[in-house]
């Protein structure tokens, strides 16, 4: 080419390329680990939206690994936890899953992620024949041969909440609202079918775009509709508080059931969410020996650095235990064997008894809770073990 | 009055815009309490010279000294604080600001504004009577009064004026001439006039310089015999 820059530039850039490829060499290095530790990868949102809970997830996993290793590990091998950042999204998940499987030679992936990240990561795990235990509650119906879920789906927590509010709070006329995304809409769908089932009516149903934090128009519609109660499902964290702050400030007083709030968010919101009812499978206030032991161990291990355990992080602990028990029982880390064995494993942990037996989903205990004036959550009652229903009919 | 120091000294000044050299080594000196005219045709670098002296354009080389201070690389506002007022040529009032606001812009210490305004209003009563009016609605001549009034408001020691006589009625020009002469006489003000209007320049200035293609081709006293003829030769076709 005629320009003078082309010549020297192309040469120096080619040099750069070579330098870059050489720099990448160590990343490709292969290490054999058949006799080494059993590697559990945790691709989790260390950055991005999930970074709020991600550290707690990692801590739950670390405690489980430490406890199991202290008892001699599994099949004589130690467990090793490898946390990775999935940037809370699919692009990061693709990177993190590949890093886990190809670089760290992970035997399993046990983690909590966004649905999009899970959907991006699951096929990678599937292709690499790596067991994937998903530890986040979600909108349901994610199925895969080597994919297991040990947290709740809408069928497990929505009906108990709706029934409670109908029976105890006499809510007949409902207003349903949510953030406009898969989880928000999925939860409201579940709520609507339950409401219809118990003979209630729905006066209005509204969805707010995810990025929008101003609920003015919807609140005005609620006021105009004047329902007996509210059921809502925003995206996690902030939007719960956005909505509740504006709802309260507007002077509305009807009972509110939330399908998206969690202990951490409620507490961070101060009095904003006071009075809100919600259901879940784990609360720090659960009064059982396993939970007290779990919380004590966590406090002891992490001290001041402890991230408060919550419903998104505790299942990681259960997941690691379930995996270890399955490997022990199967006598191998081979994924085909584990897929057979895992549904037979019953782990009684801080949540109570959890078993991933129903089409790779878990039957688990569900509790009712209410946010107090100081933002703390109080567990009101237990609904006992609840079945996830038909999630993946194609899996037996 | 520091009579030993020149009010303005320019030495070998070169500069211009981006890549065009307009000034090609300008040297001149203005004494205290002197009115000095810089004459020349359009496009010969007169305005560029003023802007470069004021620090509005970067000088490529050379030296500018104002009231004894070397201001060669100074920002415009620092030069103004030495007691220099600059009256630029075109559209140099803020059309959408009021007359009073235009005047206030010149001052840093507003406590003296009223007193100063009184002083200036002696010359141009209109600046006081129309202080609330939008400056853009003033007539051409009134705008020029505002320009000069604004420059004098700061009680400067040196005023640089770019083509003030441009397009004005004779009566207004006479008025401006009176004002500038009187200010010089009363306060020892030094004035640099950039002009094409030789009559106006000669009526005011004691000395002059002719600028041609970025250099001073002639300097002299306006009182000199034949000065006018020589200058006109430079200026007319």
């Amino acid at each position, binding site marked *: 080419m005629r320009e003078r820059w082309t010549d020297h530039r192309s*040469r120096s850039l080619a040099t750069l*390329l070579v330098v870059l*490829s050489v720099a990448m060499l160590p990343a490709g290095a292969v290490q054999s680990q058949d006799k080494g530790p059993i590697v559990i990868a945790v691709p989790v949102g260390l950055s991005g939206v999930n970074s709020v809970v991600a550290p707690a997830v990692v801590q739950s996993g670390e405690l489980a690994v430490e406890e199991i290793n202290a008892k001699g590990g599994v099949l004589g091998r130690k467990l090793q936890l490898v946390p990775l950042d999935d940037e809370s999204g699919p692009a990061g998940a693709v990177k993190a899953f*590949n890093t886990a499987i190809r670089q760290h030679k992970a035997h399993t992936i046990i983690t909590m992620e966004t649905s999009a990240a899970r*959907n*991006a990561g699951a096929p990678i795990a599937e292709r690499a024949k790596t067991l994937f235990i998903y530890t986040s509650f979600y909108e349901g119906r994610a199925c895969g041969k080597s994919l297991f879920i040990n947290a709740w789906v809408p069928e497990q927590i929505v009906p108990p909440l709706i029934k409670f509010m109908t029976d105890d709070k006499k809510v007949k006329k409902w207003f349903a609202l949510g953030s*406009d995304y898969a989880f928000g809409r999925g939860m409201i769908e579940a709520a609507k079918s339950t409401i219809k089932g118990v003979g209630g009516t729905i006066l209005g149903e509204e969805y707010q775009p995810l990025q929008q934090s101003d609920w003015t128009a919807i609140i005005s519609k609620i006021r105009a509709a004047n329902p007996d109660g509210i059921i809502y499902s925003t995206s996690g964290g902030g939007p719960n508080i956005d909505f509740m702050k504006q709802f309260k400030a507007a002077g509305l007083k009807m009972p509110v059931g939330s399908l998206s709030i969690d202990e951490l968010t409620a507490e961070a919101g101060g009095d904003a969410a006071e009075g809100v009812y919600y259901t879940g499978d784990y609360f720090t206030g659960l009064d059982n020996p396993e939970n007290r032991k779990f919380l004590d161990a966590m406090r002891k291990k992490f001290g001041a650095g402890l991230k408060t355990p919550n419903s998104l992080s505790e299942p990681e602990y259960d997941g690691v235990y379930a995996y270890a028990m399955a490997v022990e029982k199967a006598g191998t880390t081979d994924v085909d064997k584990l897929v057979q064995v895992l549904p037979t494993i019953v782990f009684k942990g801080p949540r109570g008894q959890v078993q991933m037996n129903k089409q790779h989903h878990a039957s688990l205990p569900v509790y009712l809770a209410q946010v107090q004036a100081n933002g703390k959550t109080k567990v009101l009652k237990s609904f006992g073990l609840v079945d996830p229903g038909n999630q993946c009919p194609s899996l037996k | 009055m520091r009579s030993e120091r020149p009010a303005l000294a320019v030495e070998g000044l070169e500069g211009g815009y*981006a890549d065009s050299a307009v000034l090609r080594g300008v040297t001149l000196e203005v004494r205290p309490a002197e009115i000095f005219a810089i004459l020349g045709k359009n496009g010969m670098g007169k305005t560029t010279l003023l802007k470069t002296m004021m620090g509005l354009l970067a000088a490529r080389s050379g030296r500018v000294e104002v009231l004894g201070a070397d201001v060669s690389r100074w920002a415009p506002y620092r030069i103004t604080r030495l007691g220099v007022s600059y009256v630029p*040529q075109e559209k140099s009032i803020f059309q959408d600001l009021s007359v009073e606001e235009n005047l206030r812009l010149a001052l840093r210490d507003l406590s003296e504004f009223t007193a100063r305004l009184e002083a200036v209003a002696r010359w141009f009563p209109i600046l006081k009577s129309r202080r609330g009016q939008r400056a853009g609605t003033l007539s051409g001549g009134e705008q020029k009064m505002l320009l000069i009034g604004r420059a004098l408001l700061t009680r400067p020691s040196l005023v640089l004026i770019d083509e003030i006589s441009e397009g004005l009625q004779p009566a207004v020009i006479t008025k401006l001439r009176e004002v500038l002469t009187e200010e010089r006489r009363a306060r020892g003000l030094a004035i640099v006039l950039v002009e094409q209007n030789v009559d106006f320049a000669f009526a005011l200035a004691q000395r002059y310089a002719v600028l041609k293609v970025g250099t001073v081709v002639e300097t002299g006293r306006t009182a000199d015999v034949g000065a006018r003829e020589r200058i006109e030769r430079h*200026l007319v076709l």
Partner: protein
Amino acid sequence: MVSSARYFVLLAALLAASPLVLGEYAQQILSQAFFFAVAAVTVDLLWGYTGILTFGQSAFFGIGVYTVAIALAYYVEGVMGTAAAMVGAMVAAALIGAAVGWLSFFDRASPIYVAIVTLALPVVFTQVILSGGAYTGSSSGLPIPVPALSIMQWYWIAGGLLLLVAMVSYVLVSSDTGRILVAIRENEERCRYLGLRTSRLKIRLMAASSAVAALAGACYVLFGSVAAHSYGDFVFGTELVVWTALGGRGTLLGPILGTVGVNYVSAVLGGNLPFVWLLFVGFAFVLVVVYLPQGLVPAIGGSLSRATRAAGAIVNWRKVVVGAEGARAATPQVRAAASMRGMRRGDAATREEQGTLVLELRQVSKRYGSLRVLDGVSLQARRGEVVGIVGPNGAGKTTLLRCIADGREQSSGDILVNGRHIAGLPPQECVALGVSRKFQTPNVFDALSVLDCLRVARSYRASTSLWRRSHTVELPEPALHAVHVSGLLSRLDEPAAHLSHGAKQALELAMVLALEPTVLLLDEPTAGLTREERAAIGSVLMELAQSHRLCILLIEHDLDFVREISTRLVVLHMGKVLVDGPLAEVAESEVIRTIYVGGGTRT
């Protein structure tokens, strides 16, 4: 093309060989980065080369992702179906890109406005996907069945796509059209006044870039197996710009290395200090924008080549290459064009070539608010005339020329060029009627060579290739004359930025003459020139009027110069025509004296 071909062969070889040394992990990570890099290359084409800062390319990537995902999820299957979906994705993106271009690029749109529109695009895209419910998969994404390809195959597909896009982009930016893109970046107004339909070209480029970004997205979703809104969101859009800026805008390789580098390092860092990493990227970005606006690649490349030069390596080799190219380039690069506009207008010329009226102004006024800059100006000009327009500063001279060169400028009155009204016509249309304007300060394309500047100016009349770069330019006789006289002929390879002020003035004159105008508007063509340069320009202008029968309107302060070359003088004062007449009469008149010497004090 020898060196660039060698350069791409090297890259291709590197790509083909790299799986031998890179593990599967690196291949996987790099494949992802390669797809993103394709989108970054489109950002570079738009921003680095053409000057359109866009935050919206992620949206087009996302359109590619979702078109294919939705097609595969609901409508088609198999290789042919997938291919059709990919084509569909590109078509959809091109259409939306053209629509966005139409919204963004109009003659008076500011670049800031364009940046903000493209910023809004991913926001709209994300909202549409999120509210699409199960159909789009909303926030959970839309998982799709993917072809069973090995990682190495994906690596080659991604690398091959990137290489292909980089090569096509390279050919484009090196072509005649590429030169115009750079010219638009450097000075879009000048381009319009050279008769180029810049908005149309930008809209087409936007559409093409969008299609390419969509292709990248369409391939990526087959690789990544899930469509997610984050592939088309605001964050990804800004990341593409960040990567491009870090690597180096306007280099093609910069965005590629920037994208690959950032993605690779972030993958290697894994979960270690994710926020610190983002913070680091943020800092690096700000530092690069402030201190190294050309990006890291040119900076490192520059110092590397300095280092090799210092070591004395390869210098001779390079000289030989440059020398060889120089020798080839030395064959006639500038030729006389066969046709002249004047010749083709022969019908009019036969009758009364001498005095054909080509420009007529009737009561033209221009107001800025209450300010009247032009006040009922009427004048006529004929072929072969050089009309000197004189008057003091602020008389409205430049405004007058602007009104003739841009039909949208005047506030009232009629302007006719060759008998046609120009009211409402933008500059490029006025050029088509035969008006050329030379600006007051020299307005050339600093980043281009002299030859390229001429070539861009000539593209209004000559064909513009999308892939070839012509090394010759055919100029009409007058332009050629200007190039000759000013000595530019021996400096064709030099960047215009290196020219002296005078040479730039001459170059711009030659560029304007390359349009074969009938009416030539010159705003102080000799300002800041040396005596010799003035004389040269003067001779060119006289030649133009006498031999080529151009009608020239000339603003000039140097009355000596005006007197030498004008046939007529128009004196403007305060927006009005004071005198209009033959040179001899006006030049000696009292009016001129009054305006230039005595201005009003004479009574």
